[in-house]
């Protein structure tokens, strides 16, 4: 029997049992697509978290109040530490040589309004260095002016989305915005940047640090951002900062975070994510495999009497197995391709809706999904046929 005849017979069989073939295709397609989409989502979540921290800047140090006992735990969870103050900030800038520039940060969430339009935003009080330390840029106007950090002017720089929502269709620069009860003149709009470190730059309002402290009625800082000089060792810089502040506070009650320490403490989270991802993939692969197995087992077993007829006509065991193998292979290939198409289409839709999510299926997941569909489809497409072909023809023929 020629390969062409074999394939023709297989295709005729697939076309002849449209419902069965369709169900098998569906089973495989759904299985493969599920694996691709689930792993793509997992991978996307992982990539998202990584991206959040990757562009912190490699020379950035973050001073937070509170002492972490062990690395990896979140800072700020210790006892009641001394506040970080503007004096601390000035001491750092003055006394630590490795500091290129630094920015104090006071932060709180409050209502900002313009006329009838209002919304909740995160208000950050800082200095003009903030722009460079965080690698931000201005879309319009200017950033905070230089000057005495203890005398805050009533000016504000606003994020892109805040500008759009409070000043629809207008240029906000020069207009007045109300922050809490305070009137501020808008002097600039930040370029859109998306979320960084859990803060959406587009939703920020930035004011001079003294102004923020006045608004919040508070004298402590949330953080101090330090950009170290190029080529200096970050660890020694961090130690100098800790030593200086410990001396000033009388105890060691601050933590200095570097990108490396963040990424390494993040490592365990990412490892967990990877494990979860692998678990999701194996479960969906298993489910897909069992689904494919059931469909193939049932649809081929239903054809036991056809196997009996073929045997009665003098078709050999090997030919019967070859025919069903060809059929199962074609079906599995088609099912795999269908799954790939649907899976990648689904991932495309997700990315279209959430562009920040770098969702793409890992290569190994695609390969494994296809391999499982092919192998399971072929094995369980052939096993029942092989079993039927072992029967005496009349026994196979009598089965429905």
């Amino acid at each position, binding site marked *: *029997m020629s390969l062409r005849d074999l394939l023709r017979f297989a295709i005729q069989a697939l076309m002849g049992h449209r419902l069965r073939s369709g169900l098998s295709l569906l089973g495989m397609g759904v299985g493969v697509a599920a694996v691709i989409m689930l792993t793509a989502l997992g991978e996307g979540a992982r990539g998202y978290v990584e991206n959040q921290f990757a562009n912190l800047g490699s020379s950035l140090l973050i001073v937070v109040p509170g002492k972490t006992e062990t690395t990896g735990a979140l800072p700020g969870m210790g006892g009641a530490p001394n506040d970080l103050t503007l004096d601390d900030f000035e001491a750092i800038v003055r006394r630590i040589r490795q500091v290129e520039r630094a920015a104090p940060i006071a932060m709180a969430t409050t209502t900002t309004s313009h006329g009838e339009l209002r919304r909740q935003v995160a208000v950050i009080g800082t200095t003009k260095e903030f722009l460079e330390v965080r690698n931000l840029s201005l879309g319009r106007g200017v950033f905070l002016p230089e000057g005495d950090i203890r005398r805050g002017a009533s000016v504000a720089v606003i994020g892109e989305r805040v500008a759009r929502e409070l000043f629809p269709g207008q240029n906000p620069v020069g207009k007045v915005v109300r922050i809490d009860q305070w009137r501020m003149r808008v002097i600039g709009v930040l370029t859109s940047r998306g979320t960084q470190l859990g803060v959406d730059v587009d939703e920020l309002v930035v004011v001079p640090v003294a102004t923020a402290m006045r608004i919040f009625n508070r004298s402590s800082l949330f953080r101090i951002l330090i950009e170290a000089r190029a080529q200096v060792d970050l660890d020694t810089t961090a130690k100098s900062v800790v030593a200086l502040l410990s001396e000033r506070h009388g105890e060691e009650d601050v933590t200095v975070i570097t990108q490396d320490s963040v990424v390494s403490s993040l490592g365990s989270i990412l490892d967990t994510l990877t494990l979860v991802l692998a678990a999701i993939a194996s479960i969906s692969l298993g489910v897909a495999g069992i689904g494919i197995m059931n469909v193939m087992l049932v649809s081929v077993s239903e054809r036991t009497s056809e196997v009996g*007829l073929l045997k*009665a006509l003098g078709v*050999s065991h090997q030919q019967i197995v070859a025919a069903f193998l060809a059929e199962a292979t074609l079906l599995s290939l088609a099912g795999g391709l269908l799954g790939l198409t649907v899976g990648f289409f689904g991932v495309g839709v997700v990315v279209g809706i959430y562009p920040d999510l770098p969702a793409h299926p890992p290569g190994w997941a695609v390969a494994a999904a296809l391999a499982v569909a092919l192998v399971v489809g072929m094995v369980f497409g052939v096993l029942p046929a092989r079993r039927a072909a072992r029967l*005496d*023809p009349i026994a196979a023929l009598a089965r429905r």
Partner: protein
Amino acid sequence: MIGLENVCRSFAVGDSEVRALVDVNEQIENGEHVAIMGPSGSGKSTLLNILGCLDQPTSGTYLLDGREVSGLDEAELTEVRRNRIGFVFQFFHLVSRLTALENVELPMVFAGTAPPERRARALKAIEHVGLNDRADHRPDQLSGGERQRVALARATVMGPGLLLADEPTGNLDSKSGTQVLDLLDRLNENGLTLVVVTHDPAVARRADRALVMTDGRIVRRLRGKELESIQGIGPGIAPGTTDVTSVST
């Protein structure tokens, strides 16, 4: 030539044993036309299946052309089924997704016959059973009689020496039954050995001789004039409702 010596076939059903064939001894010469009769459950189909190498005896020997069938391996059995034996079933057993012509081609596809020759031979066989104009119809577009004629074409297209038919007219009305029987007769006249299982005395009377079975044994052998005396049921009546073994002498 067929030789059966002490052929037994029993089935295990649960704990008990059903003896479908008990010590069957028989010789069938080449070119003979033999009918097998008997009440329902008497072992007719079981015997025919063994003759067709679709089933194996539990004990005893079955000689087909001098070769002992139980000694054949799977490949040899396949070869015998493919080239030596044609089988016609009561329920046709056509492949429903294939056309009449493709059904007739089927044995040749797996025998590796080249497509042009295959097509020509299948067309000839279809023509022989008078279905040229139905060649492209699928089985569900054919009448029962037409389906059985397609099955007959398929059974003979490989040129077997032995044709076995299990109640070939059991599901047909008398007119299409007669068409099928005429075709069978014609094949037999051309030298094909023919064994037909039937409940219908009219069918049996066309044979050279008849074997009457009861409870797995051949209890009577009728030939010539004796066939005329078989009484029983006409076609179309449910098999097994009347005792067809009664013979008036």
